[in-house]
């Protein structure tokens, strides 16, 4: 019973998403708006001195995201090493 409800719910949600994404969004290859990206493509070379516009977005225009991303990697590595540490014997109680 629970499975049937779940399945129906899932199908409804996915149908909505597919409909929205396929029929309502701009046709593939023709973005409806591109103001922010045009600015970046036009000015990246002058403002950041980088030929690779993606690199200039990643490190300059959206540098904080990349700091966050590097932080997430650091967090995950720290977390993995924290969880895989060797416990001391007296810690086993609590």
């Amino acid at each position, binding site marked *: 019973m629970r499975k049937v409800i779940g399945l129906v719910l899932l199908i409804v949600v996915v149908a909505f998403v597919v409909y929205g*994404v396929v*029929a309502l969004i701009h*046709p593939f290859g023709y973005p409806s708006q591109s103001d922010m990206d045009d600015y970046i493509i036009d000015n990246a070379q002058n403002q950041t001195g980088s030929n690779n516009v993606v690199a200039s977005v990643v490190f300059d225009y959206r540098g904080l995201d990349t700091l966050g991303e590097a932080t997430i990697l650091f967090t995950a590595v720290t977390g993995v090493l924290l969880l895989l540490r060797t416990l001391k014997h007296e810690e086993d109680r609590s």
Partner: protein
Amino acid sequence: MMESIPLNFPFLAAALLVGIALYIMLFKRNLIKLIMGVAMLASGVNLFIVALGYRAGGNAPIYTDVPPGPMVLSVPQALTLTSIVINVAVLALMLTMVVHIYRHTGDIDSEKSRKLRG
């Protein structure tokens, strides 16, 4: 509207990936499959975002020896890059936890471990 559907094939693919991933996560009991579901959801979303930025006939947005013509949007590519790395991190942590769960219960079936259901 009709003629846009074949053009929107990449979006359809992304949405279907998301749908399949949600199905896997809701109905599979194996924890490794659950993780695969999360990875698939991530791929679907990443595919969707990177497909948004494509411009018909566009070049990669890199000026080094680029042929003339329009450039595809660059921000979605940067966002996808960020989100891929984030998902690698999440998957690493999830796998570590599953290794521990396997250590404790000797099993990776979510029905058998008491806390993972409801």
